[in-house]
């Protein structure tokens, strides 16, 4: 994976985020990107943003995950990461 960054606006400031993982799903026909700004939230956890995009239409924009099964899919990816050696 190349060291490409995503720049987001947070509290009025531009913050660079590192792309952590990517994957696709043939059921939804979408690609998914996980990225983080390495900040830690009030609950002491690191924020990881996950967004989807449509590869056929092109590099248009990133979209929210609205389907529960999409979110379950991301959780499974985390489990895979934990379980891998």
């Amino acid at each position, binding site marked *: *994976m*190349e060291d*490409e*960054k*995503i*720049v*987001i*606006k*947070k509290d009025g400031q*531009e913050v660079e985020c*590192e*792309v*952590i*993982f*990517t*994957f*696709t*799903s*043939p*059921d*939804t*026909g979408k*690609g998914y*990107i996980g990225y983080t700004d390495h900040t830690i*939230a009030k*609950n*002491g*956890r*690191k*924020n*990881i*943003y*996950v*967004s989807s*995009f449509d*590869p*056929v239409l*092109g*590099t248009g*924009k*990133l*979209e*929210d*995950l609205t389907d529960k*099964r*999409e*979110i*379950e*899919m*991301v*959780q*499974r*990816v*985390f489990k*895979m*990461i*934990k379980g*891998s050696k």
Partner: protein
Amino acid sequence: MEKYWKELRKNVRSYKKTLEANKIKRQMLEEMKKHLSEEEYLRQLALLDEETIRVNALLVEAKDLLDTPKKTDTYFETIGKLVNLYNETDDPKYKKVIGEEINNKRTELLNAYKQLPEEAIESYNNLYGSIELVEDKELDKISKQQEMFENIIREYNERKAALLNKVGLSYELSNGETLRKEYNQELKEINEEIAIFEKYLNRINDKYTVRAKLVKEAHAAKITPKAYEAIINQASREEELNKLLISHNMASVANRIKEVNTISSEEKEKYAKKIKQYLRKRTVKAAPVVEKKVVETKPVVEEKTVVEEPKVEVNKVIKEELDEPVKDDFTKEAIEEKIDKLPEVNDEPVYKVIKKPYVKEEAYVEYPDDAYGYKTIISNLVRGLEPKKYDGIGYQIENIDIKENFKEEVKTGNYLYNLVHVVPAIVKLPFVGMQKIANKFLYRNSAKRRMQIIKDRLNNLPERDLDILLKEYKNHVEEERYGTGLNVLIEERLEKYTTEKVDKINTRIEDNYKDLFRTMKKVNVAEEKARDKSLSDDERYEYIQYKKEILKGKAKVVESIRNDYNEAKDILSSGMDSFSKASKSESVKNNYVGYRFSKEHNLDTDLLKREAELERAEKAAIQTGNDEMALRVFIENEKLLSNNTTIKKGILGNRSTGKKYYMPLVEELETPKKLYERKSRVEYGNDVTETVKDFESRPKVYTR
């Protein structure tokens, strides 16, 4: 084709009209007879008669032509049935008889055809097809192979078309060149594979044409294709053997003969003679044959020549017949014997399958009645597929790419994470990375397709198989260590099936309920009327008889209601519900949602006593066949239950708050899985006015 018949019908109509007109002309002629001379009268009469005769003849012809479709249809039907019989039977005598009948019918058909023009014959052939007999199984095998390869090639072409579409889309992307390189590589591979399969297809097509020619020639010769093939092969084998002989390859000849198990010993001996003759003519050295000598109690080892045991039996035969005279003519014609089949060489192509582009559609294996259970059903559902463990569970994941830093970070366990799936305001996107994902994104819906195939197969299962799954599979679900994707699909199908079954039973229960409540009302009306003192004895007797007539068979109706209810409940509660629990498809959160089903009352023993009394009375009435008693007790019971049920509306649905929860129809509502509103109560019977009308309009047949 239709024009021909339309014109014919028009002609028929016109002929009929002319005949009617001629009749009228005749009448007019007779009226005008006084004013005409005899000659003129007779001349005009003769003209009229000629015309009627001519038109009648035309009419008859046209009618016959119009009737020929019906005759030919019957011929085609009978011939079709005979052909099917011919193909199904194996008895040769019976086949002969059927073949003769088919030929007779064909000649009759042709005679009927001769009356029709060529256009009509062509159209008939297009509609009904030819009547040729195909009794060759090898042709069927070859045609199946053809279909298989055609399907493979078609699927490859579809993939090709999809790739070409992607190539077209890639021109819109900035990094389309790299995309196109990958696609072109794939296209190359696909083209290579298509070329391979097309070669095999051409070979099979050639095979088919050869075989079809053979079958036709066999039919023309009135011989079975097998016999015809044997004759052809005989000639080819003779050529082959001759070549072998000429090439001094005796060992191969002998081996060839040895391979043929069906050759008799006499034929072998005859063939051996020919070989011997050839040997003498060509002075070929035969293998040295030495007899074995039995050594008897001699310690000294005698000098023996090296005895090579002959590997072939033919040499022994040659040795025995060395003294026979030699014939000079050793030609093809001299070889007279018929040789039986030699072992066939398989000409099937051996090819390397790089990828599996198609799903093997293995045939559904049918078993006779009472010979299979849930395992055969599930193996049939999954035939030709290779389901993976996460098929059918959630969305599939592909092309995962994770940064190593992140992997190591997760494994350390130093951090916990918040997954944020709401996108913040983005300023800059990783275009290159996203295009790479798009490159890798191939529409391989393999898992989805597998699940869809299984779904279609489940929808086509017969009722018998669904019953077996419902009864047996739930007890063996845990045996499988395969993921629960298959169970999800089976559960969906079985839910539909059980609801259909339960709906049927519920309609039956509903109808019976209505029947009972209506009869109760009618009985009450009849009793009221009978109590009227102003009535005569006969009238009173009529009312009593009417009451008896209405009550006939109601005990059985009550019994059927109870049995149907239990049957439907068994289907839901022990069948479907336990299945879903066994398969553990969904987790049910029963905290505040399950509050609806909580039970708040103590047991009311007086109510229970009364219920027990009614139950005993009902069962006794059913056993003895006392219809009136059964009906009255049934209705008492219903009243008791309904008076003790109360249902309140809630946010999450209706809620039962009374001592009893009573609902005549069976519904799967006791399980917290389905949280929906219960049906309203059954409407019991009609109004009293309608029952009186029914009573008064009845036929008065009752007599003392």
